[in-house]
């Protein structure tokens, strides 16, 4: 009878996945879970538990422990104790563990999927076909990196204990993104799942135990924000990895400022979804389904801003309306459901409020006809499109984190880029066009860590994922993601010894000496006894020794007064404040004055750098290299002058001064050499596509220079940043700024485009603050001569939280090897953009 009835309507009917395996697992634990520390389960010291709710019916699923500060402390201790053993475990053995974890996840995939769906509310189709398979894939991929770590990451070492805090939107997947690379590189972990969705992490802990992962290598503490804060603030943690809101990311940035903790943040987004009129529109509409109605739109990289070319906008809206109508919303455990439950009532309310506000502001609400007939008793929100909105609308600016698309139109590719980049975020972007010429052009111009062409929300362990701008920094996945869990084994001692190989001191010293003589004899400026001085330095790189008073260098006539100015936008300019700072030599003798730059000078310099950024980034790598080689050439021509200045300022020996000039010329050659060789990669993601990992310049970099090796630091740091296509505002060492002000004459004669290289002298820490606070600066490099962290470093990192700019702070002490390796400089000077380009005739 029933069959006869259905035959008339051909409805889908219910198709529930069984909840029983998950419920049984919860029941086996009496519905109450402890925390997992040092390989053992125990109650939280707080003796407090909270409920984990199934948002599809708002019923309690289980009780989850509230880990206290003490629990976190115990977890860190356990991780620290385990670190020595784990980090010295051979890569192959670590690979076996990760491989075993991947296998176990696969073997229990249905249990994981059902549990995740019940705890989070996302459809079983997604947990079954997307989340859990990607988790297994992440562990397989990183088992591979563990295997290869000894060779592929041989110059790197693990960081130590890593604190990881993950969100509720992809509970187990985000866990895998955090744990897999950390373990692969030999770190130990303290992880806190989101309080709303802890259960799959606890099941995962059981898997860690079952594969025999050594105690303490991974520790799980559950709890709310207080537990997270305890992790962030814990002094025994070497790195914090966080995925979540920009708001919390900012708090974490400030809290970890100056602590020396490495930090990676994967934050919010408001990603553009651009549809050109030559796109396969039906497929683009299907893309929207995967972009904003995937996981109820609770996806950091969700394509939530639709930008559609005006001529096809009505057509696309019509198709969207029809497609929306076909969406099925309901019990997430139903296998035929597209949209499940929002994670909790609080999130649901936020979505409702934001949409209501959008409508108040004048947006037109487009929802399916069934939008008012949502299932009762759970957290549901219908698929929604808002039209008649603009960049000024709140629903266009704010991340809604729900199934809500804000739709706008554009006329030209240029306008599409402008609108796409008109956001504080930069996590992802989607481009639909059948014209590869157009699509790739747009892809390179969008400020986002991931760009999908004719596809969306493709994720894979082999490709890096992470943001530009306020979407955070650091990458997860791919080789680029490994560096978030590793640090250089040793500083590169080769910088001051440019003519030695990187495998310093290994062999062939005699050969290098020959090279040295050849190189130097060909350098006009060094006909002096510099030869021997150079070789000496190369053998024993060490801090320059202050010269005896006036013995090395003396003015033998009354010099012409020189005015060192600021160098902004290619022009020598006087400081805005009209003040100068006296610069003293090693014997407290006045050796010159520099302009006292202030915040307005910084403002002007940043403006100049921003104006030059696009052009310089677009210049060909060959072109950039030519400019930098030219700088080296002109520096060489003035080698004697620069060496004299170094002696005069720092009191170093002539030998050391000559050697630093030589090293600086070499560093510029190195920078120029890298310009067209710091290649990206093509990741082996499991789709028919090319996933291009492109190294893009950071943009505008503020550089606060260290005191030691004033010329070499400039050449290495600024030269490399320049080579990678950045523009800069350089604040020279306050002690030895005259080298930098001398340098602008080199810049002026070397075809360095105006605005790419700006120099502002003045109080370093004061200018550092202005630069760090400046919203149009993309990265700040701060080097001082503290042994560890300093007030200056702390201030820079705190202030950087404003626009979540990258920071790179280092205390560079006098040791010659303390300048970072070129590898590191290259990485800091760039950010990786992954562009996914599917193909198929």
């Amino acid at each position, binding site marked *: *009878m029933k069959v*006869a009835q259905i035959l008339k309507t*051909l409805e889908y009917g*219910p198709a529930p996945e069984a909840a029983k395996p998950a419920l049984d697992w919860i029941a086996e634990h009496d519905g109450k879970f402890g925390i997992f520390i040092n390989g053992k389960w125990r109650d939280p010291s707080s003796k407090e538990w909270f409920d984990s709710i199934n948002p599809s019916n708002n019923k309690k699923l289980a009780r989850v422990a509230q880990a206290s500060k003490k629990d976190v402390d115990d977890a860190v201790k356990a991780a620290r104790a385990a670190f020595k053993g784990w980090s010295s475990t051979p890569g192959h053995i670590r690979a076996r563990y990760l491989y075993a974890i991947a296998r176990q996840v696969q073997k229990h995939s249905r249990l994981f999927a059902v549990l995740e769906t019940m705890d989070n509310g996302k459809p079983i189709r997604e947990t079954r*076909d997307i989340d859990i398979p990607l988790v297994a894939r992440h562990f397989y991929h990183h088992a591979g990196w563990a295997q290869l770590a000894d060779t592929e990451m041989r110059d790197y070492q693990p960081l130590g204990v890593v604190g990881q805090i993950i969100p509720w939107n992809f509970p187990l997947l985000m866990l895998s993104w955090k744990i897999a690379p950390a373990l692969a590189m030999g770190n130990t972990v303290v992880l806190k799942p989101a309080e709303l969705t802890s259960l799959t992490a606890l099941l995962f802990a059981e898997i860690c135990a079952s594969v025999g992962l050594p105690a303490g290598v991974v520790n799980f503490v559950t709890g709310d924000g207080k537990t997270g804060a305890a992790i962030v603030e814990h002094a025994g943690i070497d790195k914090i990895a966080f995925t979540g809101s920009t708001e919390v990311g900012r708090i974490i940035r400030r809290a970890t400022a100056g602590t020396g903790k490495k930090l990676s943040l994967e934050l919010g987004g408001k990603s553009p979804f651009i549809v050109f009129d030559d796109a396969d529109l039906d497929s683009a509409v299907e893309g929207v389904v995967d972009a904003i109605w995937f996981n109820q739109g609770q996806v950091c990289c969700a394509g939530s801003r639709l930008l559609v070319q005006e001529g096809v906008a009505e057509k696309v809206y019509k198709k969207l309306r029809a497609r929306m109508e076909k969406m099925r919303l309901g019990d997430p455990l139903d296998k035929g459901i597209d949209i499940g439950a929002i994670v909790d009532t609080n999130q649901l309310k936020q979505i409702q409020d934001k949409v209501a506000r959008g409508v108040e502001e004048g947006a037109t609400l487009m929802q399916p006809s069934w939008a008012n007939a949502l299932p009762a008793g759970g957290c549901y929100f219908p698929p929604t499109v808002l039209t008649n909105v603009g960049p000024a609308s709140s629903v266009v600016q704010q991340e809604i984190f729900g199934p809500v698309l804000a739709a706008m139109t554009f006329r030209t590719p240029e306008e599409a880029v402008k609108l796409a980049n008109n956001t504080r975020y930069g996590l992802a972007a989607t481009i639909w066009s*059948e014209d590869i010429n157009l699509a790739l052009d747009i892809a390179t111009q969008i400020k986002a860590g991931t760009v999908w062409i004719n596809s969306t929300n493709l994720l894979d362990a082999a490709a890096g994922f992470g943001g530009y701008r306020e979407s955070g920094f650091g990458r997860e996945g791919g080789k680029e993601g490994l560096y978030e869990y590793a640090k250089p084994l040793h500083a590169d001692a080769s910088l001051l010894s440019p003519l030695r190989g990187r495998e310093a001191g290994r062999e062939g010293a005699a050969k290098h000496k020959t090279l040295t003589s050849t190189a130097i004899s060909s350098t006009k400026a060094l006909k002096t006894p510099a030869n021997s001085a150079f070789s000496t330095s190369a053998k024993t790189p060490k801090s320059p020794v202050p010269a005896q008073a006036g013995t090395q260098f003396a003015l033998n006539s009354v010099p012409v007064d020189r005015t060192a100015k600021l160098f902004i936008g290619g022009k020598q300019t006087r400081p805005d404040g009209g003040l100068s700072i006296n610069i003293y030599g090693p014997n407290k003798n006045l050796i010159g004055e520099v302009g006292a730059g202030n915040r307005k000078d910084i403002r002007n310099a940043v403006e100049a750098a921003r104006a030059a950024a696009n052009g310089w980034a677009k210049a060909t790598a060959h072109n950039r290299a030519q400019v930098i080689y030219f700088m080296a050439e002109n520096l060489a021509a003035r080698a004697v002058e620069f060496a004299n200045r170094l002696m005069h300022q720092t009191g170093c020996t002539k030998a050391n001064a000559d050697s630093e000039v030589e090293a600086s010329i070499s560093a510029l050659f190195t920078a120029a050499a890298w310009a067209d060789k710091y290649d990206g990669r093509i990741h082996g993601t499991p789709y028919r596509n090319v996933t291009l990992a492109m190294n893009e310049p950071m943009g505008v970099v503020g550089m606060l220079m260290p005191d030691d090796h004033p010329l070499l630091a400039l050449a290495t740091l600024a030269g490399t940043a320049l080579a990678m296509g950045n523009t800069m505002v350089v604040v020279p060492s306050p002690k030895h700024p005259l080298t930098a002000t001398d340098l602008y004459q080199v810049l002026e004669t070397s075809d360095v485009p105006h605005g790419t290289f700006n120099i502002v002298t003045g109080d370093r820490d004061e200018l550092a603050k202005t630069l760090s606070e400046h919203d149009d600066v993309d990265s700040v490099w701060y080097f001082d001569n503290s042994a560890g962290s300093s007030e200056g470093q702390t201030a820079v990192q705190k202030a950087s939280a404003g626009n979540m700019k990258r920071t790179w702070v280092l205390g560079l002490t006098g040791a010659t090897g303390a300048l970072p390796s070129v590898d590191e400089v290259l990485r800091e000077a760039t950010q990786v953009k992954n562009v996914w380009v599917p193909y198929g005739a």
Partner: protein
Amino acid sequence: MAKVTQIRVGAPAVVPPFDADDGRNPGTKFDPAPVRDVRINRSAIERRAATMGTRRTVKKDWQAAWLVHAVKTIDLTTLSGDDTVGTVKRLCTKARQPIRQQLLADLGLADLKLHTGAVCVYHTFVKTAVEALEGSGIPVAAVSTGFPAGLTPFPQKIEEIKASVKDGASEIDIVISRGHVLTGNWRGLYDEVKAFRDACGPAHMKAIIATGELGTLKNIGRASIVCMQAGSDFIKTSTGKEPTNATIGGSLVMVRAIRQYYEQTGHKVGFKPAGGIRSAKQALEWLILMKEELGDEWMQPHLFRIGASALVNDIERQLEHYAYGRYASMQYQSLG
């Protein structure tokens, strides 16, 4: 001609094979613009196709109902070189009684006069089939125009259509000249299919575009549009003789073309996947495709057919399992 009319009159009332003549696609003038504007992104199509059967499913009672429905849409087909009057007659008895009556009764469908959507044969057996199906309301479809390659002389193709219609075929499955598509001769394709349509007269025409031989999804989309402009009542994927049979991806392109044509002209064109569809699960996937991309009406036999032969038996097996809770054996199912 008289016979054709008779079949329509005698058809059971549930859903007639076709509404009426005025429900047919009259075609349009040749319009190159929509052909030129076809944009197909293969990767995106494949992703959608791959998840068509994972985003939706029907279980239990719903699955049983959908499977019974699928039987109604089957063009029960035999197109073998060794076909004889005997095998065609046997097929026709299967078309009249595709699922055994007891099983239908146990499904609560005792009164359902279930039969397949049509029987599809070569011209040679049209008469045989028409006689064997007399009074059943089941139309006879004839493959035509030099099926499967479509490379016989044009006048003979026209004659073949006319002969089949004269013998009582009320549906003609024509094959297009793939060469027109592969050389971009859209005008030529239009003229050819239009001539076929004219030759069909009252018989409904299904245009087989042979997706497996068109090289690209884009060509599938373009050929679909031209065939609809030329007045095809159905567009059909394959002859079943190409190296690649019906695929969900190729079908997705075709049904989207149908949707676009409907939006532009208001004419509803049917869709027929054929070739390689043997399992009940596949039949459900295609039904889901129709429901999702075109809507419920396009699940009905007047707009949807599955060209198949062994499929009925697999559906029967699944229905047995549903009705009796145990797995079936082929010996309990009648051969077609």
